[in-house]
């Protein structure tokens, strides 16, 4: 019975058999590959990286990236290859330029706005506590 249970648990790994594992020339190449595919967006499943996605396009792009790594291209060249074809959206970290300035600055702007509101409220409450004519609550 225990062997059957073990077999059933092992069968859960079956889907992994459908994906041929990629073969890397070196640990460094594998590290670069993993870093790159994590930084690049899958355009079919747009909330997943190329590393995570099962889409056929992601599979093809992973193979393409590996081929480019093998051919000696730099990370920048590989990213440029993809951006030339798919646009800046394929990068999880888009370049800072005109049309992405708002994307990069909005979190900072919101933080500043929030801090301003909090600061304003603190000052207002401070003023209310000490009273308009300088008397503290008694």
């Amino acid at each position: 019975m225990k062997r059957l249970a073990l077999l059933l648990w092992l069968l859960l790994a079956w889907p992994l058999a459908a994906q041929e594992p990629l073969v890397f020339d070196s640990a460094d190449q594998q590290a670069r590959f993993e870093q790159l595919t994590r930084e690049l967006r899958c355009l079919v499943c747009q909330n997943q990286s190329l590393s995570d996605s099962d889409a056929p396009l992601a599979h093809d792009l992973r193979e393409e990236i590996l081929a480019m790594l093998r051919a000696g291209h730099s990370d920048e060249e590989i990213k440029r290859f993809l951006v030339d074809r798919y646009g800046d959206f394929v990068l999880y970290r888009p370049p800072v330029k005109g049309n992405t300035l708002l994307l990069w600055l909005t979190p900072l702007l919101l933080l500043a706005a929030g801090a301003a509101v909090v600061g304003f409220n603190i000052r207002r409450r401070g003023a209310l506590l000490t009273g308009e004519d300088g008397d503290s609550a008694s």
Partner: protein
Amino acid sequence: MSRTLPLTIFVLLAALLAFGLRNADTKTQLPSPLIGKAVPAFRLPALFEPQRMVAPDDFLGEPYLVNFWASWCVTCRVEHPVIEQLARSGRVKIIGLNFRDAPEDAKAWLQRFGDPYDLHISDLDGRVSIDFGVYAAPESFLVDPSGRIVFKHLGALTPDIVANEILARVDAMRAKDS
């Protein structure tokens, strides 16, 4: 001011969300970086004559529409009547680029649904579709007589898009030539 502030924030947020909802369909359609650039070079076999190789230079001199399609693409069936209508009008050459598909499946699909295209090209492994930045199906590219991509549409073509984006541009190109 503090009484109306929550209401104001709510109204602004509602407006933002409404804007987002209205654009939900097109949000995943990315602008193509290929607009204005030369059509990517390729050399692919014709679907019905595998020994004949086709390259973009073969089409220089007149505008044409490259339609990326596949037999597994359900939306392509939805788009098909629009392509048929465009082909019937004879106003622009339509080239079918069958990608990530088996030739037998592609031929069977055309047999079943009809073949309005002027020419069929096979991109079996989808490598050329990557050069075009194709990530969905169908996708259509309008190319001008000098071989530059002037318009791209992701998803099924509609009569509106054909009239306002494709034929309008084709007419403008033809007017410039004459």
